[in-house]
């Protein structure tokens, strides 16, 4: 069985699966239960001067039958006294010495305030500190959370203050609500951060009730933008993790966060450079028990592929993330429709015809005849993947490489007058509607 043990900036955990700071890590009881069920670590719900929350706190986005594809919240940091939180952190650490327990902190931007909370936290025996520079709602209006994390100088300054007194690893949690996250990442590194975690939630309004015109989640008829998370944000998180991981001036470990719900998601984050994974929304949906398949699935996949430890897969996809100008222009694809499995819905046709490159031909639907109703117009297909993406039958439309004798050429080379383009599909074509049977 694959070795899932993790050393993250010196913090040891039996596996890379940590609970992210949030509602599931609010109390001793929750974190202890989670560890009993297999979680490797937990980042405590952010500790600071206790706040007062509104009622109605979460908003959800469904996709058809699937609930909570996207999720947002306007909940603030812990509403519990600092002393209670720290006492329980110490108790968890005492009872679960092999698990990673991280205190997430957020206090006002004063040197003495940060010094005080860091010292108090260290007394608990916590394995590390996570600085919440990402919370995009409420706290940011008070000059904390993303108000800090959106300004490189502030980020650097507070990390420096923390590092003046911290003896345990300091993780800086980054907000995605910036133009270029690598600037903030570099500022955290400059301040002395031991590791980064990303992404925090994304500014959002999940919807509007059209009967009442109340934005959601509604608090007495009004709402405020909240932090967006859940499966819907995973692609954004994957990109930002890879961008930070690939930045040559960021050489510190990264804890990946954002929409992780399955071992498959987790493996993707690891291959893009994540050292540990943090999960919150999936636990809020299905409970701590999901960790069993996170571990089992990741481990089985690694065994099947012959990987013995996480180090062997970490960052494995990273060298393949590149600039557009480095992509090979002579790599040509053609869509292929498997007529045996096609169910004749013509969704590919309508997508290609109206939304892409008019590269699918419709054939007359002869009732009961059973012949094909769509076929690829090979000379028009640009291999864009749209038809394969809309096709409701798994494996029916596949993208196949069309080999050619031309050497690979990137845009950069081609623009510099080097390399030759292989002949390609019709570059300029017009919609077939006026010509085709209506």
């Amino acid at each position, binding site marked *: 069985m694959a070795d899932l043990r993790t050393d993250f900036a010196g913090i040891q955990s039996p596996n890379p699966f940590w609970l992210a700071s949030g509602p599931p890590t609010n109390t001793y009881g929750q974190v202890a239960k989670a560890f009993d069920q297999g979680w490797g670590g937990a980042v405590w719900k952010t500790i600071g001067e206790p706040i007062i929350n509104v009622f109605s706190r979460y908003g959800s986005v469904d996709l058809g039958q699937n609930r909570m594809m996207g999720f947002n919240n306007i909940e603030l940091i812990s509403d519990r006294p600092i002393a209670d939180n720290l006492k329980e952190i110490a108790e968890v650490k005492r009872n679960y010495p092999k698990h990673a327990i991280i205190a997430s902190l957020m206090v006002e931007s004063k040197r003495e305030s940060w010094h005080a909370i860091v010292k108090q936290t260290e007394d608990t025996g916590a394995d590390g500190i996570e600085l919440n520079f990402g919370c995009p709602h409420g706290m940011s209006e008070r000059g904390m959370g993303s108000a800090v994390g959106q300004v490189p100088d502030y980020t650097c300054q507070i990390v420096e203050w923390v590092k003046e007194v911290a003896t345990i690893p300091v993780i800086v949690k980054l907000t995605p609500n910036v133009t270029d996250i690598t600037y903030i990442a570099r500022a955290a590194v400059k301040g002395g951060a031991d590791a980064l975690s990303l992404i925090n939630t994304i500014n959002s309004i999940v919807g509007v009730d059209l009967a009442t015109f109340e934005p959601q989640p509604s608090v007495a008829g009004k709402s405020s933008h909240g932090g967006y998370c859940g499966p819907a944000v995973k692609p954004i998180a994957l990109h930002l993790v890879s961008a930070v991981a690939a930045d040559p001036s960021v050489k510190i470990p990264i804890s990946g966060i954002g929409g992780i719900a*399955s071992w498959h998601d987790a493996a993707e984050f690891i291959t893009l450079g994540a050292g540990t994974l943090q999960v919150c929304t999936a636990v809020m949906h299905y409970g701590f028990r999901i960790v069993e398949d996170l571990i*089992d699935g990741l481990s089985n996949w690694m065994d099947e592929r012959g990987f013995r430890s996480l180090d062997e897969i970490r960052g494995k996809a990273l060298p393949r993330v590149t600039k557009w100008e480095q992509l090979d222009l002579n790599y040509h694809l053609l869509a292929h429709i498997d007529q045996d499995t096609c169910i004749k819905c013509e969704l590919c046709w309508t997508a290609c015809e109206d939304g892409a490159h008019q590269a699918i031909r419709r054939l007359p639907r002869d009732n009961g005849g059973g012949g094909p109703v769509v076929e690829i117009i090979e000379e028009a297909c640009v291999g864009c993947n749209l038809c394969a993406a809309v096709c409701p039958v798994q494996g029916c439309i596949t993208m196949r490489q069309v080999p050619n004798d031309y050497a690979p050429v990137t845009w950069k080379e081609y623009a510099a007058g080097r390399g030759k383009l292989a002949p390609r599909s019709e570059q300029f074509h017009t919609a077939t509607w006026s010509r085709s049977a209506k």
Partner: protein
Amino acid sequence: MLTDEQLAANFADIAPPLTNDAALLEANKCLFCHDAPCTIACPTHIDVPAFIKKIASGNLRGSARVILSANPFGHSCARACPVEVLCEGACVLNERDEQPIKIALLQRHATDYVLEKKLKLFAPGKPTGKRVAIVGAGPAGLACARDLRCAGHAVTVFEAKPQPGGLNTYGIAEYKLKADVALAEVQDIVDLGIELKTGVTVTSINTLLGEFDAVFVGVGLGSTKKLGIPGEELPGVIDALTFIEHLKTHPYRETPVGRHVVVIGAGNTAIDAVTQAKRLGATSATIVYRRGEADMSAYHYEYELAKKDGCVFRFNAAPQRIVGNGAVAGLELAGGETIPCDMIILAIGQGARTELKVPSDPRVFTGGDCANGGAEIVNAAAEGVTAAKRIHEFLGGVVR
């Protein structure tokens, strides 16, 4: 006369496997209930939401492990379990007026993967030096054997029939479970290092106790009961289990079937007999039952299946006499009516096995049909698993 193609179609899987695509879609419909009613409804308490979630996540190996660790007969149960009255009947989606999750087909999807890829999910435990004899290689005995072997005990299984598997191999309707699947499932268990002695009839448990530290008896039930009416000895009268066993161990064409078949009894075995007689090519196949429709013990969906197959049901019809001159010609009912037929299949339940005395001894354990009076594969498997825990404990092991 049916063609080979027609026969093959008639005995093809009544519930064909899901494609990968369909399995993924179905798995994603599962709500992943907590303390799930489907799991509670299963006699072996397979963690159904967990195995379905693993199909959704693409972890088929893990999915099969969840199923098979709870139920060593996960393959055959996926095909032959009465899920309508167990897990699927309990699915919370029924409460929302929707179709329940196709749990059986998903279970088949995961367990088929294991057979296909020849994955070995279990290993024998560290040798304990203890020896256990299992009498009967049906689901109860082999489920017990599997778990005892995984706990490190040496296990010897005695089976009177030439092939292991019990009714899984010899008695489940062909369109639900084929013998090769049943045997592959058994082989997987035997491969753990279980000594299997087929063609051996155990006549004395006490003799076994001289050689083994414990004995599990899972011999199933005896032969089909007799009606006790005149004409029962006429050629053309056969008991349901013999009929089904012949069908399952010979090419379809070699199993004799009448033109007009009457099946006496209205339990699930009677349904298996009447549908298979029809599927073999009988022109008419009729269930004759002395009590009313509401009294029949066959599951509702089995009843529906038989009606769909074109079988006829005669309720409140009490057989009086089998008529015929040298061969079956008809069944005379109380009241005088005679149903013309050339084959009569008896399916009025099996008697207990009386030939093997089971001594009252703390080293002897029982399970399966011989202990519960006759139930489903899943009940036998559950009892075998429970017995393995008790035996392990009895032999000084720690039960987790």
